[in-house]
């Protein structure tokens, strides 16, 4: 028996999926969730192989949810927006259903998903790229961080600076630090223009910069409004120079 979970914030949208799934004897619906938080909990509890996931949901979008899942189940997205399709396939979604969809189209999607479930190695391989690519293409508004069972959502406006910590990034916001597993490179590309990579291991929010002081012959130190200090390399200094025009 294959366990599936349906995550969509509209009851009627979940009803269609449940109804159409009646055609598949080998799939059982382990849970229905109305938002990403419930979804994360239910996935931890049931360990489903298959996920039906809406994109636009309160607090936590389908994509943000996916970032937090490791390993992620096979996913079929369903949404009314066609502009998310490319991203969904980048995330190696099994299929992407545009609401409303026919029973046949749904069957096709589930069959693709079943194929993926039966070839787990292939799925795993593409999933490794998942976190990286999920944030690489478009600018983000917020960052979702999971520590244990606790989820924190930080608006990029509230970030002071970000430091590299081995395989993690450490996000500093309002005097607090949060660890997230991702690379500086991926994060750098997806942050809006107010962020500048001032050093191999640091990205700062330019609005939080108070002053820049020389540190040694070839390096500088950025002093943030909060008083925190971030080292700036020579190339980082050049970038700041361009950005701020001094």
């Amino acid at each position, binding site marked *: 028996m294959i366990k599936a979970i349906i995550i969509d914030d509209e009851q*009627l949208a979940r009803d269609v999926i449940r109804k159409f799934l009646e055609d598949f004897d080998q799939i059982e619906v382990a849970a229905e969730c109305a938002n990403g938080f419930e979804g994360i909990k239910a996935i931890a509890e049931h360990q489903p192989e298959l996920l039906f996931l809406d994109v636009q949901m309160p607090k936590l979008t389908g994509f943000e949810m996916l970032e937090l899942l490791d390993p992620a189940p096979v996913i079929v997205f369903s949404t009314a927006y066609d502009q998310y399709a490319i991203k969904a396939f980048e995330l190696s979604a099994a299929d992407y259903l545009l609401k409303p969809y026919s029973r046949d189209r749904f069957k096709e999607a589930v069959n693709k998903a079943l194929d993926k479930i039966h070839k787990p190695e292939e799925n795993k391989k593409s999933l490794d790229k998942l976190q990286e690519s999920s944030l690489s293409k478009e600018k983000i508004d917020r960052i979702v961080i999971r520590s244990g069972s606790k989820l924190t959502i930080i608006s990029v406006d509230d970030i002071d600076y970000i430091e590299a910590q081995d395989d993690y990034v450490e996000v500093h916001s309002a005097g607090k630090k949060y660890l997230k597993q991702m690379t500086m490179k991926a994060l750098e590309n997806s942050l809006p223009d107010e962020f500048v990579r001032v050093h191999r291991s640091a990205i700062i929010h330019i609005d939080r910069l108070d002053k820049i002081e020389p540190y040694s012959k070839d390096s500088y130190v950025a002093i943030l409004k909060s008083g925190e200090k971030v080292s700036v390399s020579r190339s980082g200094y050049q970038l700041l120079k361009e950005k701020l025009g001094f």
Partner: protein
Amino acid sequence: MQHPLTGKALLFYLLAWAAIIAAHANILFYQFGFDFIYSATDSLVYNISFLGFGLLYWYVVQYITPDSQGITATVLNQGLAVVIGVSFLTYLCNSFLASFGVDNPEISSFLSMSIPWRIFLGTFFLGMIVLVYYLLQYTANLKQKEKEEVELQHLLKNAELETLKFQLNPHFIFNSLNSISSLTLTNPEKAHEMVVKLSEFLRGSLGQKEAELHSLKDELAQMNRYLEIERIRFGDRLVLEEDINEGCYDRLVPNLILQPLYENAIKYGIYEQLESVKIFTRTHCTEDNLTILISNNYDSESTPQKGKGIGLKNVRNRLELIYGKSDLVTIKRERDNFSIELQIPQTTKNNDD
């Protein structure tokens, strides 16, 4: 408005005065036989005072306008102001020039004899200047009005486009159709009901002619169709409350002006919180004003995905262009309640014209 006499216009103004100064001095020198120094001084003192006064007078023109006082009052006020100003200036100039006449009785008698002429000429010059100022002001106003008219047309077009875009808005239309497809499987009766509601709503929106205003009753009826569809979609998560004064039903509002407000309430209420959202509508009216308040609870802790903020800006712009006031929209963001209040003036355009 900026002072119109700058650059080329100022040069022209100065040249005209230079000609007057030359003519004035010549007349005194040749016709009246005064010596050169006196003729030049008289002309310069007198005319340069008026040149300066004419420049400064622009600021008076700014405050006494036919728009604010009516034409008769403006003519009377300006006429009085010009005569008093000219008399005062003439008095000052004559007092100054009198020093030349202390031991020259010819100059003294000329000065006292010429007062009516000086007042007459000064009034004539200043009158011309004032006339030119009003003409310039009128043309500038006309241009401004034309610009506003064009902008209003543009915004109207945009509003229509926005409406059209809204009708084809994927997150509304397609989600609604998905709800219907779901209901056909589980509750055909309700599916039927939703198809009817959606059709009514689409017809209502598509049917909007270019007529800019319609009654509050029509506006609310159209909004109700929209909200009922959303209520079928979101079920218990959307709660509607209202306090509508039926006495206000015949008041006029710009059509679909409330649409972005409800869309916003749903977007930031429902899309960003897990609890249900309550949208509250209240209308209140007086003889010449209609107040519409729409508020919703929201989760202040949430980190909303950024909207483009176009909806509320459009509402503000549209009201400003239709009613010519910039303070008709009030937004209040409290801890867990968001409210927006519109003031819709009820003086019809026809009365103004």
